[in-house]
């Protein structure tokens, strides 16, 4: 809820349009490896947006995000695949998202009553429960070795390397290129809806619950209902994210959806900036891409070994964990607003400052017109 852009003028839209054009053009230039990184980052970003709605928007902690990612991933794989009903892929995707939402709803007796850190502990149980089910419900999940994921098909167009063969501007479009656009579209949808929610009536109610439950209740917000609603919506984003992850991996295994995954998502939203959609995306890109980039350059980086090399250094995955662990400490200490807060604090006269500064000016508050853009947008410690 931090960056307020009440209306979208052409100047506010321009940077977004440029970013979209750039992202759409990338598959023409990048090789499949980088596209896969991008795809994972986009999938993670959707999940992080959902978690940010819950943690940043409502002040609730969840360590069970991996569970809802798994529900989305296995839900899609089962609904669209064999064994399973083998539904059309788009329908299976929608149903997988709904399934994650239902799973979140089933948890509402807990999520509506338990607050903050205590909810985090309660959701921890979901991760272990989910892992147990994934290992044992072999008919659906394929057990320890996981299961294959049916490719996505939309109106006869398959998101694989063939059927139909496709090449754009001389670049052959394989699965990565095609899924890139699917991921981009879903991320766009997630971004758009989450921003609207945070800025609209539900987002204000959630922020009120976060800042003071008593005040929220007295102002007419049914607190428990909104707490569980936030949990359901967050689960649905996680479900979508999980389904996209399943599509990107093409095979899903139970061990991926462990507690570390939940913590990765918390790291994403803390790094990116709590409560901000853009922050969630930035954090997701950082946390997801870092180990993969380190793996790619393991041979040239000091102290980092190639996977399986067994040398003196650390593996790229471990190195990435050290790095983003350090990044979290740095962010918490020096930039509590996260990456987004850093960008916004820089008093650059460029596009970031423009919308924030022009908004109050339009409504005749010239005295305060300049200040919002330069101040860090933290919760002021005025209340309570």
């Amino acid at each position, binding site marked *: *809820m931090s960056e307020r852009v009440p209306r979208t003028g052409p100047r506010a839209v321009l940077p977004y349009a440029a970013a979209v054009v750039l992202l759409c053009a990338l598959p023409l230039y990048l090789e499949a490896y980088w596209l896969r990184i991008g795809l994972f980052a986009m999938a993670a970003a959707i999940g992080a947006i959902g978690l940010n709605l819950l943690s940043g928007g409502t002040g609730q902690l969840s360590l069970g995000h991996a569970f809802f990612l798994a529900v989305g991933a296995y839900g899609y794989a089962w609904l669209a695949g064999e064994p399973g009903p083998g539904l059309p892929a788009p329908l299976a995707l929608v149903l997988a998202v709904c399934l994650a939402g239902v799973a979140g709803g089933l948890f509402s007796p807990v999520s509506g009553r338990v607050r903050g850190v205590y909810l985090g502990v309660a959701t921890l149980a979901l991760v272990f429960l989910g892992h147990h089910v994934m290992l044992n419900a072999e008919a659906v999940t394929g057990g320890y070795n996981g299961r294959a994921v049916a490719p996505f098909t939309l109106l006869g167009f398959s998101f694989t390397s063939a059927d139909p063969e496709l090449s754009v501007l001389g670049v052959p479009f394989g699965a990565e290129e095609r899924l890139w656009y699917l991921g981009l579209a879903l991320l766009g949808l997630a971004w758009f809806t989450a921003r609207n929610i945070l800025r609209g009536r539900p987002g*204000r109610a959630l922020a009120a619950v976060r800042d003071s439950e008593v005040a929220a209740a*007295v102002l007419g917000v049914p607190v428990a209902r909104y707490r569980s609603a936030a949990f359901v919506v967050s689960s649905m984003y996680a479900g979508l994210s999980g389904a996209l992850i399943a599509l990107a991996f093409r095979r899903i295994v139970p061990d991926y959806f462990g507690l570390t995954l939940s913590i990765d998502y918390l790291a994403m939203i803390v790094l990116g900036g709590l409560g901000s959609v853009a922050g969630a995306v930035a954090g997701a890109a950082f946390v997801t891409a870092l180990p993969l980039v380190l793996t790619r350059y393991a041979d040239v980086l000091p102290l980092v070994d190639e996977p399986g090399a067994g040398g003196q250094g650390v593996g790229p995955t471990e190195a990435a964990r050290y790095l983003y662990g350090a990044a979290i400490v740095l962010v918490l200490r020096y930039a509590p607003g996260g990456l987004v807060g850093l960008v916004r604090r820089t008093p650059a006269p460029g596009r970031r400052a423009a919308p924030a500064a022009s908004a109050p000016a339009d409504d005749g508050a010239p005295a305060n017109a300049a200040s919002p853009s330069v101040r860090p947008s933290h919760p002021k410690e005025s209340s309570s």
Partner: protein
Amino acid sequence: MSQGPPPPLRVTDLTVRFAGLVALDAVSLTVEPGSIHALIGPNGAGKSTCFNVLSGVCRPASGSVRLGERELTRLAPHRIAALGVARTFQNIVTTEGTVADNLMLGRHGLSRAGFAATALRLPHAVREQRAHRERARAFAGLTGLGALFDTPVGLLSYGDRKRVELARALCLEPRLLLLDEPVAGMNGAERERMAGVVRTVRAELGLSVLLVEHDMGLVMRLADEVTVLDFGRRIAGGAPADVRTDPEVVRVYLGSPAAPAAPAAPAVSAPSGAGAVERPGDASARARGAAAPAPGTERGDSA
């Protein structure tokens, strides 16, 4: 939302206990439709507890609160808000975001746009929110916040934030407004301005006001009726002029060297045997045993 005169608020024999400690002891009062009723008393007298019961934050042990025909004591806070009871807080409680965000929160119960409609920006939700935003802007204008409508609350002065709370409460279209120390911490000019706003609001919106305030001058000028609490008991009530000269009120506020322990005894020893238990949730709770023998010294400060 402009209906007839607001219903009267009748509080009857309201008793609240916190773990054996009586915070409110059979308190009764009536807020007449359209009046400004002040609730006064020294720190720890139970004024805020009374507000918490009226707004549904706290459940009474016994007694009833009726707004018109509706009993409020069994209702959840958001249901009470929906019946037209809005309150402000002693310590400012605003959410992050602009003045508009805070005022729009006050419109929550009066609007419908849910998660799906808001997420997809469905036309009816957008239209609804725009209409409510204009209404919120009107209340901002009424309380003198018009020029600050799109300013982040964190950048406002203390007095302005107090007025944001008032405007946000008004956004609920209340029929009864509960103001918990609306001018605490303000300077003289800000106080007069706030008093003016409260008068304007009462006149223009025709609502009843129940307010807790320590500024006696302001209470005497503003209120139609005053109820005085001390140690959870109603010790006096009536028109401001009568209350000001009531000997019991004078004793509570100024202390009375002529009658030290004897008259104070019934009011003080009644609640419980546990002498020095602190009142939970009340930062300024006094240790009762210590305060009882020497009301003159300590209470002189709080008056």
